[in-house]
């Protein structure tokens, strides 16, 4: 009796689920031709393999992966990719645990435990780090009356460590000759969650600005207050006068924050796709063969004219070998599309398309996946 009665309730729930099941659809193809489908005229890709790919990792590359997925679906109808933007740590952990087909991470696999676990997951083959998505990090601020601001790494480090406390500090004034800066406290906002953006920002400050507070995914500056996720910090900076933060480009744009120009020694550089692309051109690879681990010092420390050095390079972590045939095929198809036609939409989403030279290296690596 009891079971039957609860069964009735649950049955109704199930029925409603099935009812919904009758009319659910994954088809979101727009009527107009304004998405990747029209741009992907000739994607040189061999479709096939399993239809649903699983991936997880850095939230910084989420919007880029969305664009890749759209292009992938245009090139290979009927496929799906679930990219779960929970964080780099989760991406690496779940890749190594075999839970996802590839991981997304803000930093390459660490030599030692991580690479060993990855090799184990790939049936004793090494895993490769493919830097597929480059996202500039903006130093976003909001100070009424200050539309343009130039900072260098040293001053940025001073601001984010609390050594510079006022907007009209001589150090900032020296970089912004003509601008009138208010006598206002600087409110530093940082990420309260552990994040690859924080990690890379601190690495940049260390390489270029003499940052001594330490690195890692927790912010070590010892000043300001933390808000949760990029959305939280961007929203916080947008709502108080005198605030500054570091946040992915698209968040700074969407929250209408002013973005500081960076002077790396060859004049102030505005954050644009071109200026960031120039910094990627400077990047050197320190990985072996197809393992394209970047030497970040070469980006962060660049003094090339017109290059915006504050970039977040995010990797796709894949097995070089050791996938089953179906998975390998799908992973290769997806990454090929991502590195070619998928790049078209990136600038709009706040990323930097891959420079040619880089694109070729990645395609070579993708082809070599077995």
């Amino acid at each position, binding site marked *: 009796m009891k079971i039957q009665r609860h069964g009735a309730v649950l049955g109704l729930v199930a029925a409603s689920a099935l009812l919904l099941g009758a009319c659910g659809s994954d088809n979101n193809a727009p009527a107009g031709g304004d998405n990747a489908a029209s741009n992907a005229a000739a994607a040189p890709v061999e479709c096939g393999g399993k239809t649903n790919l699983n991936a997880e990792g850095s939230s910084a590359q989420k919007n880029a992966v969305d664009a890749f997925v759209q292009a992938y679906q245009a090139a290979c109808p009927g496929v799906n990719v679930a990219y779960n933007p*929970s*964080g*780099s*740590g*989760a991406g*690496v*952990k779940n890749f190594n645990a075999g839970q996802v087909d590839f991981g997304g991470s803000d930093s390459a696999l660490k030599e030692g*435990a*991580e690479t060993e676990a990855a090799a184990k997951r790939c049936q004793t083959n090494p895993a490769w780090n493919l830097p597929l998505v480059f996202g500039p990090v903006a130093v976003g601020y909001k100070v009424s009356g200050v539309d343009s601001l130039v900072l260098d790494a040293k001053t940025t480090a001073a601001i984010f460590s609390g050594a510079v406390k006022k907007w009209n500090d001589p150090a900032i004034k020296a970089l912004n000759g003509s601008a009138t800066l208010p006598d206002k406290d600087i*409110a530093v906002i940082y990420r*309260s*969650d*552990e*994040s690859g953006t924080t990690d890379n920002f601190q690495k940049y400050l260390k390489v270029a600005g003499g940052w001594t507070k*330490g*690195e*890692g*995914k*927790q912010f*070590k*500056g*010892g*000043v*300001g*207050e*933390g*808000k*949760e996720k990029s959305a*939280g910090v961007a*929203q*916080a900076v947008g*709502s*108080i006068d005198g605030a500054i933060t570091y946040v992915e480009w698209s968040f700074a744009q969407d929250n209408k924050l002013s973005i500081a120009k960076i002077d790396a020694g060859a004049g102030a550089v505005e954050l644009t796709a071109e200026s960031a692309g120039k910094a990627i051109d400077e990047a050197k690879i320190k990985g072996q063969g197809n393992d394209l681990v970047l030497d970040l010092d070469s980006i962060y420390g660049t003094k090339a004219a017109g290059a915006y050095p504050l970039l977040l390079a995010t990797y796709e972590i894949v097995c070089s070998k050791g996938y089953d045939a179906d998975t390998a095929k799908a992973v290769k198809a997806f990454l090929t599309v991502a590195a070619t036609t998928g790049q078209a939409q990136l600038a709009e989403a706040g990323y930097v398309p891959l420079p040619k030279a880089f694109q070729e290296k990645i395609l070579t690596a993708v082809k070599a996946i077995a």
Partner: protein
Amino acid sequence: MNDPVVAKRPAGSGDTGTERGVAAAHTASEAPIPPTPEASATTKAPHVRPGDRIFRGLATGSGVFIVVLIGAIGLFLILQAIPSLGLDNVNFLTSREWNTTDPTNLRFGILDLTLVTVVVALLALLIAMPIALGIALFLTQYAPRNLARPFAYVVDLLAAVPSIVFGLWGLFVLGPVLFPFSEWLIENLGWIPLLAKGNVNVQLGGTIFTAGIVVAVMILPIITAVSREVFERTPTMHIEGAIALGATKWEVVRTTVLPFGKAGYVSASMLGLGRALGETIAVAIILSTATSAFGWSLFDGGSTFASKIALAAPEFNDPRSAGAYIAAGLVLFVLTFVVNAIARSIVAGHKEYE
């Protein structure tokens, strides 16, 4: 596991049928109308039917299952936490530092987390308890029927609102509204340490004050629902007796409803406190983390145990660092344990008193 039951109730779960029959018959002759349904079942059943045995086994098994499960969770937390605790380079209980970036040099202490967690939860409880009492009394004693029903429904509906919504509501809607009030408090009553200017920006609203109010709204439905149930069960005879003696409405409530429902109300509040201690997503969204230590002001920021874990969980990639957070989770677990034990003892004490 089963021993105490067997010892206390041989008739129900013993294995030797003859003994049980004898015992049952014996009881039957002594007490024709046994006081508990349990005893009455045994008396009228000289031999236990298989259906009864199975059903009893299932019920007892479920009880054992839950005990084992909680034991397993506790054990899991301890096993994961111990190695990291061994590696901790500062005092776990008294340090305010939290630095787990380098797994070879772990420095984590829970003092700040404990203080912030407790203050947020207590603030929420202080706000929610009197209001919940008021609502529960209102709904059971004062409200016109046609107002009580829909309102009770709204309160229940709030249990359906996911905590992330409360978080966003606190951040986007409540925070800006509270800002002038908070500023006024700091300016005029800032000499009270609890209302001093804190270590985060008041304008952003990421303070313990905001978080406490939001958590109070979140636990209000639980406390109200349970208290309402208890108040409703005040014996009508008591109430009618009080009315017959010429008591005013308030006197009726004070002399019958409150004494009857006090224990239930307190334990409901403790359940609410447990929920407040463990609230995760809403607090993580609202509360700003601060770089300086908690300074006993409601306008400070900080992290609670749960928000600290939630903010770091996606980036767990080293068991040693993760263990530090699990250790914090363990403390939260123990804290909840203690709160519930207190609630139990209050209710138990009250029963004995009656």
